[in-house]
């Protein structure tokens, strides 16, 4: 299991085992609208501080989701590879 520590906006070293998400978005098997769109949809509807965990079976998510999180000014908490899918944790920061 690979753990990428977040560098975007978070000083503390959180990982998937220690953070309990408030919401899980299961976007496995989603080609269209796709995992990132599902994450944006969910995060927009949540209050600041909410931790959302995205599940994606698309390898590209491990790259494009963190890229958007950084641009949008949220906090990337972790990217965990789970065999056939990825779990990406994000805290809504604004």
């Amino acid at each position, binding site marked *: 299991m690979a753990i990428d520590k977040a560098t975007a906006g978070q000083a503390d070293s959180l990982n998937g085992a220690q953070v309990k998400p408030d919401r899980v*978005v*299961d*976007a*496995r*098997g*989603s*080609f*269209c*609208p*796709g*995992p*990132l*769109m*599902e994450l*944006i*949809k969910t995060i*927009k*509807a*949540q209050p600041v501080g909410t931790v959302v965990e995205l599940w994606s079976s698309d390898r*590209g998510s491990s790259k*494009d989701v963190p*890229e*958007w999180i950084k*641009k*949008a*000014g949220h906090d990337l908490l972790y990217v965990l590879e789970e065999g056939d899918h990825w779990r990406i944790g994000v805290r809504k920061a604004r």
Partner: protein
Amino acid sequence: MSKVNRVLILGGGPGGTMVANHLARRLRGRIEAGALEVIQLTASPWHTYQPGFLFMAFGEAPLSRFQREQASLLVPGVKLVVDPAEQIDAKGSRVITQNGAIYAYDYLVIATGSYPDPTRVPGMAEGAHGFYTAEDAVRLRDALRRFEGGRIVLTVDVPHKCPVAPLEMVFTLDRYFRSLGRRDGVEVVYTYPIGRLHSLPPVSEWAAAEFERRGIVAETFFNVQRLDPESRKVFSLEGSEYDYDLLISVAPHRGARVISDSGLGDEQGFVATDRYTLQAAGYDNIYVVGDATNLPVSKAGSTAHYEAEVAAENIAAALEGQPPSHRYDGKVFCFIEAGGEEGSYIEFSYTRPPRPARASPMLHQFKLAYNELYWLSARGLL
């Protein structure tokens, strides 16, 4: 006398209509014997083929071209009631309508769709045009006819139905102004929430080449934060902004109000739905099809179509005392219009990645033909 079973279907779009027709065909004997009622509650006596809105926005056809009377689309055995649900009492297995009628049910099908809600974004309702409702399409048609030149910006919010429509819109804008000999005076800007032009990489790659060829400007990672209708500026939460002369927005969609009012939806009014069985979370006797689900699949007529077959078959099996016989595999099929003489299509599921068909004039012609064939789909014949 043995109990009469009742299947109640909420919604008169493609999903609800196909479930109703499929069930009435499949269980005709039971209906004729008086052992089963299939009742459809709708908000309107008219059925609208929504892909027609894009054609309407460019003055290519009037609304009447894309509407039929709902009653004319139903096979014998379906009871149509134009009186939409106002409250769903899921625990008590009954629905209260706008007119105050109460319908108990054995099985409920929620096919109440989704609608664009520009009031969710500051300035959008006042400052933006749209093409996701008949009224908006007509208003945009008139604005385009009067448009004297400048910058047209297209913005896309999530969630929204028909994920390929924003691309079709800018391609058609390009073709429209070229056909009028006014393309030089118009800048077309396409913005998109994620890091490419479309969720599907092959579609995105195809679109990028088309944008290059036609001179369409694009900005990715653009999620609208607010509009300022006075100064005609649009701002993204990622920190960029555009001045515009005309703004066309694909507004964030919500599930039907009855879903939220009944406590069955998430924050945006979509129903938590099992991705394979299509049953609503926590309710074995409620099925959800089409835009109303919270599933991570395209909100599109074809999705509703494939889901409707699964839901109808499983309700039929349950009425016969059998376990569910079908499973939804996430299948979606969409035509892609390139705003010209060529068309393509794409097909995918939860496990099958998409591969667009090579664009051809024949596929464009078939899409035009499908605009008429749709009525056979709605009747459950295609």
